[in-house]
Structure formats: C-alpha cells, structure tokens
C-alpha cells in the first residue's frame, strides 16, 4: 500500500480516527507521517487533512501556486473545508486529486456502478476506450515503439471522430 500523501513510498503508519459517527482511515509513509505531526496526536486531525482536502492544498501551497479554484463556479478548497459540500458538478474534476482519498474512505469503490442516463450510455464505453488508447499511445511513445504508436494514433482518431458524431 502506498502512502496516500506522497503516493511514492510504502505506507507504514496506519491511522483510524473516529469523529462522531464518521470513521476515517489514512495510510502514510514515515516521512509524511513526521511531516504531518502524527507523532503528536494532539496537533493532528484527519478531518482537517482529508475532509479539508489538506493533501492537495499542501502540495499547492508548497509549489507556490495560487489556491485551486473551480473555473466554473469559483469554489475553493477553503470553501470545501468550511461547508463539506462542493460548489458545482465541475468541482469534482477540479478537486479530484484531493477528493480521491476521501471517496475511498467513505464508499465501496471509486468508480460508479449503477444507473446511467440514456443520453450518456452510448458514449460512455467510447470515452473509456479513448482514455485507454491514449494511455497506451503515451506508453508506446515513451518506449519509442513508433510502429505501435502510429497504429494507436489511427485508432484513437477514429474513436474520437465517432464520439463527435454521437454528440448531439
């Protein structure tokens, strides 16, 4: 299991915090645990870290960038920290990185399995195919397998055209 903060090192510190009815779990590597002050439990709050999107917020601050803001509705991470709710549908894309750990802790999975609106049904499979092809293409290019890359590029182009045709 990888550390949920740096996502690089093996997690060796496993924490469970119960806050009222909610239970939250977090897995950290030793360095990140030290950085978050896990050795000093009084100063550490999982809620702040996860619910407040602390993970990506810290990354953001350390990289000197401005606070992440949803381009559609202007919602920020600080707003999420305060309200525990998101601003609009687009926010899920904007803040996805910080949300993923939270979703993992509260749901059975992180992928929707269930009803899909009819209007989305046809294109869904295609969209998944496109993102899969794109990943393969990136890998082929990185491996300098240009023959494979050319073939993937053509497939990708065909799939994209098909998707555009399906859109109303």
């Amino acid at each position, binding site marked *: 299991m990888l550390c949920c903060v740096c996502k690089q090192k093996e997690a060796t510190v496993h924490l469970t915090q119960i806050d009222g*009815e909610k239970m939250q779990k977090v897995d950290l590597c030793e360095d990140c645990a030290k950085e978050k002050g896990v050795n000093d439990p009084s100063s550490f709050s999982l809620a702040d870290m996860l619910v407040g999107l602390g993970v990506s917020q810290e990354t953001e601050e350390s990289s000197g960038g401005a606070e992440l803001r949803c381009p*559609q*509705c202007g*919602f920020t991470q600080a*707003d999420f920290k305060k*309200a*525990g*709710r*998101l*601003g*609009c*549908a687009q926010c*899920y*894309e904007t803040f996805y990185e910080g*949300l993923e750990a*939270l*979703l993992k802790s*509260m*749901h*059975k*999975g*992180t*992928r*929707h*399995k*269930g*009803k*899909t*609106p*009819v*209007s*989305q049904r046809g294109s*869904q499979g295609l*969209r*998944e195919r496109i993102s899969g092809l794109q990943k393969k293409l990136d890998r082929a290019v990185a491996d300098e397998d240009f023959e494979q890359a050319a073939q993937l590029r053509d497939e990708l182009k065909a799939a994209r055209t098909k998707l555009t045709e399906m859109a109303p």
Partner: protein
Amino acid sequence: MNICDFLMSPAETARRIGPAQGIVLSSRVRLARNLRATAFPGWAKKPERIRAYELIRPTVEALPEMAACYSESMDNLPALDKQILVERHLVSREHAAKGAGSGLVLAKDERLCVMINEEDHLRIQVLLPGLQIRQAWSEIDGVDSRLEKKLDYAFSPKLGYLTACPTNLGTGIRVSAMLHLPGLVLAEQINPIIQAVNKLGLAVRGLYGEGTEALGNVFQVSNQMTLGEAEAEIVERLSKVVGQLIEHEENARQMLLEKKPKMVLNQIGRAYGIVANAHSISSKETLNLLSFMKLGSDLGMFPDLDRCLADELFIVTQPAHIQKEAAGKLDAEQRDVARADLLRDRLRAIKRPTVPPPRSGSALDKQAEA
C-alpha cells in the same frame, strides 16, 4: 392552498397499510440529482437558485405521477405547515428551513415527493407504507428516467451522478426502512444489533433521520455508501437486512412473552395508564408510550384498539399537528395539555390491556415482501 386540505388526514395515512406493517412502518428510496450547468443550491447565488427552481418545477409537475399535485415554493409555506410536512416525513428538516428558490412538489397519493433545491437541485423520494423497498426503487427509477429526458443531469461516467456532498456521489441513492423495534429494545438486544447492522455498511438512525433520537423505539435503517455499488445491489442488501431484523424482532417479542411476561405486561400496562389518563404529556413521552401501546395491540392485548389508531396517534400527537388542531400557536406547556386532552379523548373507549393467553396468536403481520 392549506397544506392540511391537500394532505391525507392522519386517520387515512394510518390506514395505508403495507406488507409487514406491524414492524416496518414505511419504506423509502430517495435519489439526489443535479443540473450540469448550475452551481449546487448551497453555493449558487439566489438568482441562480431561483432560475434552477423555475426550470425544474414545471418539469416535475409535468410527470404523470404528479397529475394531481401540491406544488409550492418554500417561502410561501407558513412555518407550521412546513413542520407538518416534516412530521409526515415528506420533507427533511433541512428543507423546511429553506425559503425563496426552494420548493416541493408532492403527488396527491403522497407516494412521490420532490424537494427542489434542498442540498441538491433535486431530491426525489418515494415513500410507501410497510415493507416495499423493491417497489419503491422500481417506482422512483421510472420517475428518474422520465426526468432525465428533460433535465440535463450532472453525470460523469466514472463518478456517476454528481452531488453536492461527496457522501451521495455515484448512484445518489438512499434506501431506508423505518422499523418499530420495541421487542429488541426491551430484550436489550438492540445495541449489538445496531452494531452488527453498522458493520454491514448500513446506518441506523432515529425517527427523523440524521442526528435524531430513536424516539418511540423507531429506527431508520439506510445505506451509507453510494459509489461503487449498483442501485439494485443496495436495494437487495437492505431488503435482506430488514428481513432479518423483522425476524429478530419477532423472536425477541416471543422470547419476552415466554421468559419475562411480567416485564412486558408492566411496560404496556403502565403505558396505557399514563397515555389514557395524563393531563399533561410531552411529545417525547407520548411517542415512547404509544410504542408500547402499539406493541400491546400487536400482541392482541387491546382487543378494542385498532392498530391504525395507535399509528394515527403517533402522527397527531406531534407538536405541529397538535397546534394545527388547536388552530393556533401553543407554547410547549399548552401543547402538553392539549396533547393529553386529545389522548384521553381518543382512548376513552379502550379498555385496560388483557393478559394474552399463553402462546397467543400475535396479530403480527408475517407476510414478507412479495
């Protein structure tokens, strides 16, 4: 329109009976849905919220299920009417606190109710009497499919229906059953059972949902996880657990009658004594005592108490209903007196509880959900 002219009378509501009604008071499924291009209600500015309301409202009213409906903006509803709707479990307490830009559309038969701009743009709910979880899901699924043709829902293939709170993400579904479990409470088995149910990823809450007390031995069991599992799986899991809870409750009642009959009779007899004779009684005490009256009726100890009457009293003794009946605002003390007057009057003809014969045929409805 006065909300009470539209709503079924409490007596009619109590007479709506479903499968396993002795233990399962009601089954509910709600779906959270949002519009793609509009900020969620909690974040949208007022004009944007009103625009969304005005777009959604006619679409919902046009549903065939809403052919005869009550549709009103929350700012046009008097506080007492909102409270009545909460006491009937038709709107949430959160929604009752809303004003302009939020509203509700309620079908005449009260099976379908849509809250507009609660936490999400749409909170669609189907509420049925007794154990009818699968039926509720199939009805709401149809309603939702009709709405999606007209409304551009916020949906992502990966994350499903996008909701204001990440806890509802994915299917946006909350399936719940309201259970009356006095046997498990008296047998002191309720806590381990709640813990076991929690372990299955289901929540157990009180009478009015999140953060409320289990008054009157009424517990609401619902799913917590909405992402990574299909609706049908959630519905099945909950149905199964509710089926087991019914069995446990029946066993607990049987066991109590065999092993601790005096304790049970004492509870029921005292409940009758107070409820039928008090001159001032709080709603909390009333719910708790009526629960034992209902248990007594289920066990056949009140031959002349129609079980529907106990259910009706559950509704009409709540604060807003008492005030509606008195046609005016009453303070807590006046309500307690009015409530006691009402109970004495309605229970006037009910005779003292009889001791059930050994191995009594309980009036329990053992019929399982079809």
